[in-house]
């Protein structure tokens, strides 16, 4: 993990993106109220349009570009996968609505990122996950925006 998480490439990419988009973007206060949900996130029908997703993504990447990975707690999501042989015969676990919402957000933001950077490497997916996690329970929490 990251370092489940190793994050050096993510930091470099975020910094590069931040350099391109940071003008006029102020770093929000950390202690904003968290936009936490037990299950359902924003319904898909209320999802912002492509342009809005792209603008939002640019702003958030710029905000996250300034952080020090080795000295901060970095929010992420992890999919919980049971591959234990003894459970292989069991019916699949029903994912919560929260999982489906984050997947939908990943789809929308992934498309936006490809529009911003058509040559994006596969490793860029890490920073998208970070952005989504920061929006959900980190410094980019929607409730404080």
């Amino acid at each position, binding site marked *: *993990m990251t370092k489940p998480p190793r994050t050096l490439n993510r930091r470099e990419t975020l910094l590069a993106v931040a350099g391109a988009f940071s003008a006029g973007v102020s770093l929000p206060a950390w202690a904003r109220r968290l936009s936490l949900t037990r299950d359902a996130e924003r319904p898909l029908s209320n999802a912002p349009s492509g342009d809005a997703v792209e603008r939002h993504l640019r702003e958030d990447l710029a905000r996250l570009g300034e952080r020090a990975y080795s000295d901060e707690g970095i929010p992420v*999501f*992890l*999919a919980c996968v049971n*591959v234990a042989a*003894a*459970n292989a015969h069991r019916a699949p676990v029903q994912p919560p609505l929260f999982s489906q919402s*984050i997947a939908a957000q990943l789809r929308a933001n992934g498309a936006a990122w490809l529009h911003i950077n058509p040559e994006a490497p*596969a490793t860029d997916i890490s920073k998208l996950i970070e952005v989504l*996690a920061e929006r959900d329970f980190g410094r980019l929490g929607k409730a404080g925006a």
Partner: protein
Amino acid sequence: MSEPVTFRSRAQELEQEFGSHPLIRAVNFHSTSLGQTAHYDRQLGEYARAFSSVNEDELREYLTTGAWHKAKPGLIVSVFEGYRNSYEVLTPLIEKHGFVGWYWVITGFINTAVPQQLDYAEHHDIDMLTHEYRDGRYALTWDELRRLDGKRHVIACHTRSHMLLSGMDAATRREEVLGSQGEFKKHLGHPVRSFVSLTGPAYGEDPTTDRLVEEAGFEFVFSNFRIQRIRAA
């Protein structure tokens, strides 16, 4: 030949995986310097208002059933590498706010003699923005790990030397996985259940490492985007 992994294909794969499995939130700490104490306190305090702690048994239940039985959703607080400041700075805050710390330990780091620990860190991708211990000890000790273990925090394996397993010869790789597990058995009196290696490759991506992880008896493999339960208890 397999198709090259592109951003698009990776995103589609991950979207599918996220949408079809339970997700859990995690926060990843590395070096936690004394000067940032107030910041960590606020961050964990905010989390405590919204999230519950997660231990390995609770994680197993969640992976097995997809059901979460605490009032608040779970948050895994991961603490990487085995820094001394994990114990001295972050642990009191983790406990103050009611979380379980998941300490991912590089056994080679904590086995390194104090005068060589900074040099070891520099050569094993163990980052620090600050160097605030004049006595030169930057790694946890086994005594500290035993105390954490005794307080029901999770002690977990982050390999022996924090190097890419895929580039190692067979004997070295074996030491990284089985050797480090052996050190946990020796010093804690029991094996640890969770494993992650540098850069977080998942179980299933490298058959050689998979076999070693199985042989070492790990139950959970953490990687960049998932937690896999690979064996029944």
